[in-house]
């Protein structure tokens, strides 16, 4: 498909296109670059006019200090565990449900699918209050399960996998497996998963990024000084009662951002390919 398109209407991009895209790239990257700059100066220098534009010599000092100040190491491990579990479970259950919605006929299918789509619009604020009560009742404040359990499934994921499997999975393949006497689990394992793999990878990345960066509920369920994820620890650094050292705050921001940026640098091509292949749009 792609080959045909590039052969058709598309013309070579002019210099103006490169200038504009270059500007957009600059705007996208500058705050991240400046994060690094600020994390490599002293706290006093960062808030001195004019702010520094080039990296300074204090990056290592700041890293050591921030790492010890709020236990960024623990936060990093916590965030990895939470985002990994949430991504794995969302992908698994979304693929199962998405497959059923896309390819299996059953009573009430369209109604249930409409329900899934409708629930994508519910603000998370609506569930925070009862969830908070549940975790206080169970004594789960500052425990990781309080942020993992509510995020194990996502309506968006079901819709996403359903849209993909609708087009990617030939129904004959499923029926052939059935005729061979394969029961459901074997059909899932040997037919659905192999076909769904590219979309599962994209969904997994999207959910992982989302869970890694999730803020509202973790900020309520966990505390910066207890057992935080990176975002919660970061909020603690940024709004602490002690005098704020902005260089340390931004060093924390750097620590929380770099792992995902590394993943993007390595896998960005595939993620972008997944999104632009149309899997995300409605």
């Amino acid at each position, binding site marked *: 498909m792609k080959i045909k398109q590039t052969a058709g209407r598309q013309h070579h991009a002019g210099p103006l296109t490169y200038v504009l895209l270059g500007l957009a*790239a600059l705007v996208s*990257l500058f705050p991240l670059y400046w*994060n690094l700059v600020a994390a490599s100066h002293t706290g006093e220098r960062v808030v001195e006019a004019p702010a520094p534009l080039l990296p300074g010599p204090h990056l290592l000092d700041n890293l050591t200090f921030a790492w010890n100040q709020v236990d960024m190491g623990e936060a990093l491990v916590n965030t990895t565990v939470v985002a990994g579990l949430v991504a794995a479970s969302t992908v698994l259950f979304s693929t199962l*449900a998405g497959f059923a919605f896309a390819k299996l006929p059953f009573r*009430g299918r369209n109604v249930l699918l409409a329900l899934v789509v409708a629930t994508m619009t519910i603000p998370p604020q609506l569930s925070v*209050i009862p969830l908070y009560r549940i975790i206080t009742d169970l004594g789960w404040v500052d425990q990781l399960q309080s942020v993992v359990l509510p*995020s194990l499934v996502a309506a968006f994921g079901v819709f996403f996998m359903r849209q993909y499997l609708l087009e990617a999975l030939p129904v004959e393949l499923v029926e052939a497996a059935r005729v061979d006497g394969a029961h459901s689990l074997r059909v899932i394992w040997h037919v659905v998963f192999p076909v769904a793999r590219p979309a599962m990878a994209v969904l997994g990345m999207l959910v992982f990024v989302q869970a890694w960066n999730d803020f509202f509920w973790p900020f309520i369920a966990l505390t910066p000084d207890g057992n935080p994820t990176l975002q919660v620890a970061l909020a603690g650094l940024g709004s602490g009662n002690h005098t*704020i050292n902005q260089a340390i705050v931004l060093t924390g921001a750097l620590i929380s951002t770099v792992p995902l940026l590394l993943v993007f640098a390595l896998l960005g091509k595939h993620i972008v390919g997944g999104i632009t292949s149309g899997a995300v749009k409605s």
Partner: protein
Amino acid sequence: MASDTTTTTGAPAAPPPPPAPAGAPRSAWRGRRHRWGVRWGPYAHIAPFFVLFAAFGIFPLLYTGWASLHRVELTAPTDMEWVGLRNYARLLDDEFFWNALRNTVTIGLLSTVPQLLMALGIAHLLHGRLRGSTFFRVVALTPYATSVAAATLVFVLLFGRDFGLVNWVLGLLGAGPVDWQNGRWTSQFAVSTIVIWRWTGYNALIYLAALQAIPDELYEAAALDGASRWQQFRHVTVPSLRPTILFTCVVSTIGATQLFGEPLLFNGSAGATGGSDHQFQTLGLYLYEQGWVNLHLGRASAIAWAMLLILLLAGAAVALVRAWRRRTR
């Protein structure tokens, strides 16, 4: 590709389960088990999702509605005193609620409209033969990988009044230093900038996907009819993108309604007030202040349901306008 979609979604609401496939099962017992599986198997596939979803999605939603009819304090969440609709009546008289609602709408417009327009422009630029197109696409997506907390903490400093780089650049251009934190419009502009920065590239890629799906024949036919590039954009590109534009508008609107982390952290150590004069306090932030600072969980629940009702009203309004426009056309 497309034909499969139409046949599947166009199927009747609940087709009866098809007879067991023709490959005759080896025994009656197996046949029965097989039919049972065809009939109930689908529910087993969706059950894990719906069970977890009911527990952590539907139940809390309903419970929040129930709590909004009570007086409940955060310190004793089991002591619930029935107050009927008083929490809602109170909201109507609450100037901070209306302030937060106004701010949510203006910040929502300030962040969503430029964001989607720029995303459309960038998608247009990315669509075409381009050297380094993968590089530009990955770069466009990097802000999305940055968390709300990290991005906001960086932007707070960039927007600093006395030392921030934004004012430094303005100074080079001869414009006076702007107090980004304390002005109503300036602070809302700054908060919106964070949202725009994080989401423009992501939306651009979604638009790009839709652009790539438009068949060339449409453009060729338009060109044969003598349509200019602008007319092609107006009459081919925009109509083809309409479903995608609607999708991104809906998603952005929902996101704008829930805005929380940016205004919270833009306020530095001053907490959930959304600025000294509440000038950028959003509904999400006000809900948090009522529930977790002032400890009034009942009132916070009422704000949460008010948010849902506002979204539903907005959705109904859009649907009405669309129906009306279709009729008058």
